[in-house]
Structure formats: structure tokens, C-alpha cells
């Protein structure tokens, strides 16, 4: 069902998004963050924890003086490598143990330092490329079912219980498994270490946990003959590090939004902008599909009213992703089925919104979130609302489909809830498989007019943001009714201006390959 929408307005919105992000990109180019620097170390091979379970990358970066870190950690780490002959892991451990400090190495000329780093940089990039290639190969051998790709969450807090749940979900038909993070992890300025069994409303994102899940899912993928994808959450204070870990452990997707942390977690906006850029460059290179968080606009505010804001955020996320070198096929823009179920013709508005996104972002693997806010203890009605969501998704060709749970208002999903959710999606999507292709919206009817109105309001909103500038617009509470100051929020002290000779070997490597790289589908 193609809607007639004003293409010039769409172009206008894209131009506005470019105008809005351009000054932010200038800011990004001139800054780095502690998380970006820690990511560079992790990519080089630094890992492990020191005293008090503090990760080695944190210990190293925290040991730098502000002047020092303005140049980037890489060069001085390269000097240390050259002078000690240690490998990055051992060097990191030594620094963590306090037997060495980076500041003691100053002899090696820049070129030699870069030379000492080069093999590790290349090894890291090769490793990421190898994982990407492995994903592509597995996908070719174990083809997925056609989209909407059914996505469910596991959230027990214990990675081993999560593994049981994930395998069961895959067997029940899930094509993507997300491990929900423990409450508050996005506000930690470090990544926990090792396998974890005590999360709160979710399980910590750690590299070891990633590995445990990836290997369980690889096993079940082979058994089922279809590749089951793994996803986790990047946005937060450690966005670039989680992107790094995900690249290394072959996650397939990551939640990654250019503004979510700012608006919904009160993370400093400058920190977020810089972090999202680096993490997306890496995601692009890893072939990881990002999932943006527009659904969050709808959990607190009315979905009918917020529709233009959702679309505006999609344009901005798209533009930021493009400028990090991401191809459309890796940009999983978000939306959610959150209109009040008791609104007359609410389904028509949902269809309009979903189809609008589909047409404006034809090559993006759209991520469609299920009803949550209006779900209640009435599991029978909840199951029906989920069914209408499933119908909307298959009709409008959404790509990444989060299955709604009939127990959404009650508890994090039981194993059987996930099975019911998957059965719901499979039933509805099969019985109405080509329905969307076999109907046309009435010209100038309710559906088309709604889509046009949302687009028009979105462009007005973007005009306003462009006028104010993105940072000031956020301060003026243009998004989600939330006001954030440019220098307020968490993690601001981890943002710093780059010295003229700032250098991050990965950034340059990724940037070179960036735009050119097109991951296979």
C-alpha cells in the first residue's frame, strides 16, 4: 500500500537534518571522550579488570592527565609498546598493576609509535572484518526467514538463565534475541567484566556474557538451520566500548541512538554526540545494524501527538548514521505501536505512521516496537493488541519486529509468554502475509491524510530545530518535553577537546573505509 506523500517535503526534511547535524559534526570532529579512548585500547587488545573490579581500559584512561589525553591515548600507548616490547594485553595489565605508567614513555618518535601500533590496529580491524565475513557466511548457509524478523528479549538478570531462555525462544521461532541490560548500566562509566548472574530487570552487558550468548545461539542456529541474531544495548556512557565488544563477539545488532541517552538518561549531549559517532563508525565497519530508540518518545507522551517527533528523530538518526559512514541497510530506525487501543481508528493511524516510515526510509531495516504503555493485566486483550501490531508490521513491511508480550504489564517475560508472542506473530503474519501488498489506501483518505500531516508537522519541527541549533533545541525541550543543558548531565567530564595532533588510529582507518564499505545483506 503505497501512500502518496510529498517527496519535496521529504527532501526538505533530509536537508534540514543535514543542516541540523552539520554543526554537531564539527563539534564531534574537534572532540573525543574517555569512552572513545577506552574503546581504542580495547580494540588494541587491552582487557581485564584491576583492583575493585575496575576495567583496565578505565584505569589507563583515568591515569592520564587532561593535557595528555587531549592527544589521544593511542600514541603514548604505542610508545609504551615500542619501548617495552609487551603486547597490549600485557602492557595494560602492567599499567593496571601500577608497575608501569604511560607517562614514563616519551622517547619514541611519533612515527615509530604508530609503527608499533600498526600490527595491533591491523589485527583488530582484520578480526572485526573476519567476524563480519563469518556472519555473512553463516547467513548464507543458514538463511533467515523473511522479515519481519521476530525479535524477543530475555531479561532474567542471570546470563545462564538467559541462555536457556534464548535457546528456547530460538526454537520457538525467534530470529533475533536481545539481552536486556540491567537497570542503570547505561549510567555506568565502565563496562562490567566477566559472566554475571545478578542483574536487575536485565543482565549486564559484558564481553563474556556476549560470548556465552553468541556461542549458544550459534549452536542453536546450526541445529535449526537458520541464523539467529544477537543484539544488545550500546547507548549510554559506554556506547563506543559496547560497540567494540559487540564487534569482537559478533553481535548482529545494537541499540544505538544519537539522542536517547541525552533525553531519557540525562547523559551529557556532547558526550553522547561524540560517542555515538565513533560507535557508529565501528558498527558500520562491523556490519552491525543499529536500532534507534524513537519508541521512547511514546512511553511517556501520547503516541498520536508525538508522531512528528518520532519522524524527526528518525531523520536526525539517519543523518548522523550516514555521516558515520553507515549504509541505509544498517540503520534500523525505530518506531512503536503505542496509540491508545481504545481510540477509534487508532489502527489506521498506526498503519499510516508505519507505512510513512517505510516509504521515507525504503532501505532501512525499520525496527518496530510493540505496544507496552497501554498493556494491562488483562492478558487476553493484550494479546489482541499485539495481534493488531503484528498485522501492521507485516502490512507495512517492517524489518525488525519486537514481539509484544501479553504479560507486558506484569513481569519480564516468562518462557511461555515468549512462545505465545512468537505464535501470535507467526499466525497473524502468515494469514495476512501479502495483505499490505494487495490493498491501496484510499486517495486522500484518513490514512493518507494522516501520513501527510505527520510529515508536514515533522518538517515544521525540524525547521524549528534547525533555527535553534540542535543543542539549543534540546535545551528548549523540543524533544520529548525534556530540557537538557549542553554542559549538564552525566559524563560531561569525560568529554574533551582534541589537541591539534590528536590521533586515533581506528578512527582514521574506519573513516577511510567508511563510506565505501557496504556490508552484504
Amino acid at each position, binding site marked *: 500500500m503505497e501512500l502518496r506523500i510529498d517527496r519535496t517535503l521529504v527532501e526538505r526534511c533530509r536537508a534540514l537534518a543535514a543542516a541540523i547535524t552539520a554543526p554537531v559534526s564539527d563539534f564531534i570532529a574537534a572532540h573525543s571522550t574517555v569512552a572513545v579512548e577506552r574503546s581504542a585500547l580495547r580494540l588494541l587488545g587491552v582487557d581485564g579488570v584491576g583492583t575493585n573490579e575496575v576495567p583496565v581500559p578505565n584505569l589507563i584512561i583515568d591515569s592520564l592527565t587532561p593535557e595528555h589525553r587531549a592527544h589521544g591515548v593511542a600514541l603514548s600507548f604505542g610508545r609504551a609498546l615500542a619501548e617495552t616490547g609487551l603486547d597490549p594485553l600485557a602492557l595494560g595489565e602492567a599499567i593496571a598493576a601500577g608497575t608501569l605508567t604511560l607517562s614514563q614513555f616519551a622517547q619514541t618518535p611519533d612515527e615509530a609509535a604508530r609503527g608499533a601500533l600498526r600490527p595491533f590496529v591491523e589485527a583488530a580491524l582484520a578480526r572485526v572484518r573476519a567476524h563480519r565475513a563469518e556472519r555473512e557466511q553463516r547467513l548464507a548457509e543458514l538463511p533467515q526467514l523473511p522479515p519481519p524478523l521476530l525479535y524477543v528479549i530475555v531479561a532474567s538478570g542471570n546470563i545462564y538463565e538467559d541462555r536457556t531462555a534464548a535457546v528456547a525462544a530460538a526454537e520457538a521461532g525467534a530470529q533475533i534475541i536481545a539481552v536486556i541490560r540491567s537497570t542503570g548500566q547505561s549510567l555506568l562509566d565502565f563496562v562490567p567484566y566477566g559472566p554475571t548472574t545478578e542483574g536487575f530487570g536485565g543482565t549486564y552487558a559484558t564481553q563474556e556474557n556476549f560470548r556465552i550468548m553468541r556461542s549458544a545461539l550459534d549452536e542453536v542456529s546450526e541445529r535449526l538451520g537458520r541464523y539467529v541474531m544477537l543484539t544488545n544495548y550500546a547507548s549510554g556512557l559506554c556506547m563506543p566500548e559496547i560497540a567494540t565488544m559487540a564487534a569482537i563477539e559478533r553481535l548482529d545488532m545494537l541499540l544505538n541512538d544519537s539522542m536517547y541517552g541525552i533525553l531519557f538518561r540525562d547523559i551529557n549531549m556532547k558526550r553522547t554526540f561524540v560517542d555515538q559517532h565513533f560507535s557508529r563508525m565501528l558498527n558500520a565497519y562491523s556490519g552491525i545494524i543499529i536500532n534507534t530508540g524513537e519508541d521512547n518518545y511514546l512511553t511517556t507522551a501520547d503516541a498520536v501527538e508525538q508522531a512528528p517527533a518520532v519522524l524527526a528523530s528518525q531523520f536526525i538518526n539517519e543523518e548522523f548514521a550516514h555521516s558515520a559512514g553507515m549504509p541505509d541497510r544498517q540503520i534500523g530506525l525505530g518506531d512503536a505501536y503505542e496509540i491508545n487501543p481504545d481510540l477509534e481508528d487508532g489502527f489506521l493511524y498506526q498503519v499510516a505512521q508505519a507505512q510513512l516510515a517505510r516509504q521515507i526510509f525504503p532501505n532501512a531495516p525499520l525496527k518496530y516496537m510493540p505496544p507496552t504503555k497501554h498493556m494491562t493485566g*488483562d*492478558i487476553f486483550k493484550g494479546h489482541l493488541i499485539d495481534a493488531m501490531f503484528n498485522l501492521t508490521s507485516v502490512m507495512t513491511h517492517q524489518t525488525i519486529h519486537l514481539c509484544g508480550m501479553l504479560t507486558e504489564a506484569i513481569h519480564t517475560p516468562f518462557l511461555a509468554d515468549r512462545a505465545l508472542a512468537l505464535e501470535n506473530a507467526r499466525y497473524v503474519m502468515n494469514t495476512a502475509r501479502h495483505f499490505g501488498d494487495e490493498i491501496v489506501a484510499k486517495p486522500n483518505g484518513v490514512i493518507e491524510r494522516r501520513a501527510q500531516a505527520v510529515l508536514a508537522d515533522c518538517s515544521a519541527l525540524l525547521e524549528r530545530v534547525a533555527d535553534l541549533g540542535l543543542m539549543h533545541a534540546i535545551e528548549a525541550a523540543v524533544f520529548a518535553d525534556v530540557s537538557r543543558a549542553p554542559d549538564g548531565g552525566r559524563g560531561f567530564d569525560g568529554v574533551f577537546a582534541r589537541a591539534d595532533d590528536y590521533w586515533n588510529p581506528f578512527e582514521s582507518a574506519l573513516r577511510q573505509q567508511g563510506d565505501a564499505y557496504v556490508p552484504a545483506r
Partner: protein
Amino acid sequence: MSRPVKPYGDTMNDGKVQLSFALPLDWSEAADEAARQLVAKMGFTDVQVVEGRPIARGFSTFVVYASTPQTIDVDAVKAPSVKTHAMSMEEIDAYVREHLGRKIRIAGACIGTDAHTVGIDAILNMKGFKGNYGLERYQMFETFNLGSQVAAEDFVRFAKEHAVDALLASQVVTQKGSDIKNFTALVELLEAEGLRDRVVLICGGPRVTNLMASELGYDAGFGRGTVPSEVAAFVATSLAGMNARGR
């Protein structure tokens, strides 16, 4: 060995169960609380009334999640399956040729006042069920489909007159225990007529289990989702066994 098992919500042995029911009460917070206490009286712990609402004057409905302390020892559960001999139509025909050397005469009916023939037809008719051919298509079965609302007397008389080897009785309506009544009447009549030991007696229907069938005195019971070859295999192997024992 003992293997105690509990309902599973999201953690082994959490005992989680979902319940729903109506109470003949106008809805109020007190009705929610009554629902909670009632479920607690049933022996559940951690009772959460997650939904309660009026559905009519004097009636409310509830959705509850709770944990049961009960376990079931799975290894002690006896439920012998009748679907053990997985054979194809061709294999079954060959088996009958080899072990009996003649056609099996089999009669099916919807007994009592039950008129739900779709289930028994699914077993008997050519076409079969879920792509599995019905007994009429088997070379080594001679099939009689007596249709619906067949009185036990008529069924038994037919079996006698046609020297039937196996009887298939179907019951779909279960209201007020009518299925049990009708199944029991049939088996008693067969016994009274001295026929019981000479036939394979089978019952079926959506609420039938093999266990219930054997408790009622049947050789086997087939429930929802049965396909014809499962029944044919059971009949063929049972008759071969009876033959061997020299019935």
C-alpha cells in the same frame, strides 16, 4: 528414580501459574482481595491479582499469577502411549498381510447422541487427516462407517453380524460427562454379549486420553490430533498379538 517437576515461569522451580476465573460478585477492591485470598486458599503462594474488572452486574473476572508449591514426579506418571508403532500405510498393509493374512474388518461410529462425525470420518474416510490417508484407503482394512448418533445396541449388533475385528467409538460432546456414560455403556454391552475379548475396542475424541480409555476398559484411546496410521498400526499389531495368543 524420581524426577520432581514444577511449573516454570522464568526460573527452574519457580512454580509460576496463570489463572483466570469469574466470581459472582460486583467488582470492587474487595473483590480483588477476595480473588487473592481464594487463590491463596487453593494453596498458591505469591498471589498477584493482575487484573480484576466487572463484566456484568454481579459478575467480575480476574487474571492471577501465582506460584504453586506442588511438584509432580514425572517418572511416576504412567501414560503408556498407543502411538508407539510408527508405520506407513504401505508398511501396515504389508504387516497385516504377513501376520494376519486377511483383511481386518473395522467399524467406526459416533455413539450415543453425538453427531460430531468429523473426527471419526478423519480416521476412516479415504481422504484421512493432515495428509495421512484414512483406513478406507488401506488395502488390508475393510471399513464400515456407521455415522452419527449410533446407539450402543446397534453398534454391537452390527459388530456381531459383520464379524468385525475392531470397533472405533467416537465421542466429542463431553458436557455433563456424556462421553464417559456412552463409552461405559458400550463396553458393558460388549461384555454382556461375550464379545469384549474377541475384538479390539478403541475409543477416541478430543478429550480422550489413552489412560482414560484403559480405565474404562478399552484397549486404547486416541485424543486430539490423531492420524489414521496411528490407529491402523495399533489395530494391526494388537490383532497380530491376539492371533499369536490364539484368541
